[in-house]
């Protein structure tokens, strides 16, 4: 029987990792992730989880340990944030290019400087092109459920890629809410029994040279196969979500969730992570007052569900992307650029970059209402008010939208 418990996001991540029965866990403490691994460590100390936890001197070592464990055929888990992820950069790349299905939770935190602890997906989005899959989730239930899905997606023979499940630091990592914890036997039935690699394995009976010096022509071939695996993952993500839904009664709509988007929709906000809840509330309030607005929650950033995003947003007069991060050099947020690429060549849709909530500031329902009102105006004004490179709107809590 599943149980309902009140818990914060880090505990939900820790419970999910334990339910997946990993063989090896390695992590280095960093705020706001630390309590994930503290929880797992306690579970192992109390003999509630049969796994090895490796104390390491840095995140670089944490990821390197997991690569060794994964190469030896172990199911592996880690968690990190911000500067810890940055220190992991070199082995982070190797994990994906060696096609090791490591699962790592990321409690999103701004990158310094300035010195900061609070939420922003700046850390993980900055490494979105390192070959990992990246999920961004909205609440603590979704953390738990997505981590369980993550092992199955990553280890699928059509995919074989490492995966991040990212959630906003403090908003989810340290906030408590109701979470349904599935029964271990149900999880065992959902998740394949262990990880059994055929493509790469440190096996004395079948020796192979791992990662030898590789010429450009072969490297190109491995890159092409890696890109194809990312694309194949889009279908696997949908299939795993459907199987998860059948097993546990909860679906997360695969890579993208369309909330109240219909044929009459005049404006849509695109959201990522914990801000989505406030966005839904704003959409509901505006709908009550007669406005035709909707929300698109981007759950998966890598692989980018470009076709799905394009089809859902095609024909919407105005689309705003709310980014809790920046793309230095583009003068917008990162997700705005991703969504814009997906919408390339689509006529009649005004696109508006919006930035809000940097450094863990609240993104409120009222801010989303302001954003939606601005979008309605832009959409009604038509092409005259939709330049090719619109200026970013910086949403703020005092209701003043500004371009800076």
């Amino acid at each position, binding site marked *: 029987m599943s149980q309902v418990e009140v818990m914060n996001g880090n505990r939900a991540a820790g419970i999910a990792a334990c339910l997946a029965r990993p063989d090896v866990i390695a992590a280095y403490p960093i705020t706001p992730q630390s309590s994930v691994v503290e929880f797992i460590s306690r579970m192992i100390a109390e003999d509630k989880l049969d796994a090895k936890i490796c104390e390491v001197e840095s995140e670089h070592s944490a990821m390197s340990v997991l690569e060794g464990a994964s190469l030896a055929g172990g199911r592996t888990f880690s968690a990190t944030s911000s500067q810890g992820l940055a220190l992991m950069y070199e082995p982070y790349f190797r994990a994906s*290019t*060696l*096609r090791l299905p490591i699962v790592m939770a990321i409690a999103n935190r701004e990158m310094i400087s300035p010195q900061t602890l609070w939420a922003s997906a700046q850390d993980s989005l900055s490494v979105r092109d390192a070959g990992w899959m990246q999920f961004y989730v909205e609440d603590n239930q979704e953390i738990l459920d997505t981590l369980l899905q993550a092992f199955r997606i990553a280890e699928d023979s059509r995919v*074989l890629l490492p995966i991040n499940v990212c959630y906003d630091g403090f908003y989810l990592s340290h906030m408590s809410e109701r979470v349904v914890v599935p029964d271990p036997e149900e999880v065992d039935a959902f998740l394949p029994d262990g990880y059994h690699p055929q*493509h*790469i394995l440190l096996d004395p009976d*079948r*020796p*192979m*040279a*791992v*990662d*030898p*010096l*590789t*010429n450009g*022509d*072969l*490297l190109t*071939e*491995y890159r092409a*196969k*890696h890109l194809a*695996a990312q694309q194949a993952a889009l279908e696997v993500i949908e299939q795993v979500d459907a199987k998860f839904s059948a097993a546990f009664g909860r679906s997360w709509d695969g890579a993208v969730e369309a909330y109240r988007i219909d044929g009459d929709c005049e404006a849509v906000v695109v959201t990522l992570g914990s801000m989505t809840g406030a966005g839904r509330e704003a959409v509901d309030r505006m709908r009550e007052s007669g406005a035709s607005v909707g929300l698109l929650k981007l759950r998966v950033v890598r692989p980018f569900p470009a076709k799905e995003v394009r089809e859902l947003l095609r024909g919407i007069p105005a689309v705003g992307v709310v980014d809790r991060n920046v793309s230095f050099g583009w003068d917008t947020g990162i997700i705005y650029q991703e969504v814009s690429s997906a919408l390339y060549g689509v006529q009649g849709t005004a696109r508006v970059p919006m930035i809000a909530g940097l450094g863990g500031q609240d993104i409120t329902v009222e801010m989303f209402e302001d954003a939606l009102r601005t979008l309605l105006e832009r959409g009604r004004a038509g092409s005259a008010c939709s330049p090719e490179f619109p200026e970013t709107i910086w949403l703020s809590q005092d209701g003043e939208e500004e371009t800076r």
Partner: protein
Amino acid sequence: MRSQYIVPIGPDGIYEIKTGTWRTADPRIDEDACIRCGICLMHCPVGAVTREGERFTINLDYCKGCGICAHECPKGAITMEGRDTA
């Protein structure tokens, strides 16, 4: 598609890179001067020198032509014969 694998691995060991194509000078061993000491074998950075019975031979598929063997030979029994330089 050249590789049956999706990751950089190989069951036969390192991929074959014929470094001999880099060579601009060919080593020649003077069999009469050679005292069979094996110093050339120990110093060759690419392992191109092998011992065959009483003789030492150099595998020209892998010899890069660096000349270290010629430099180290205590009897001056190895010479580098340039191809491009007069």
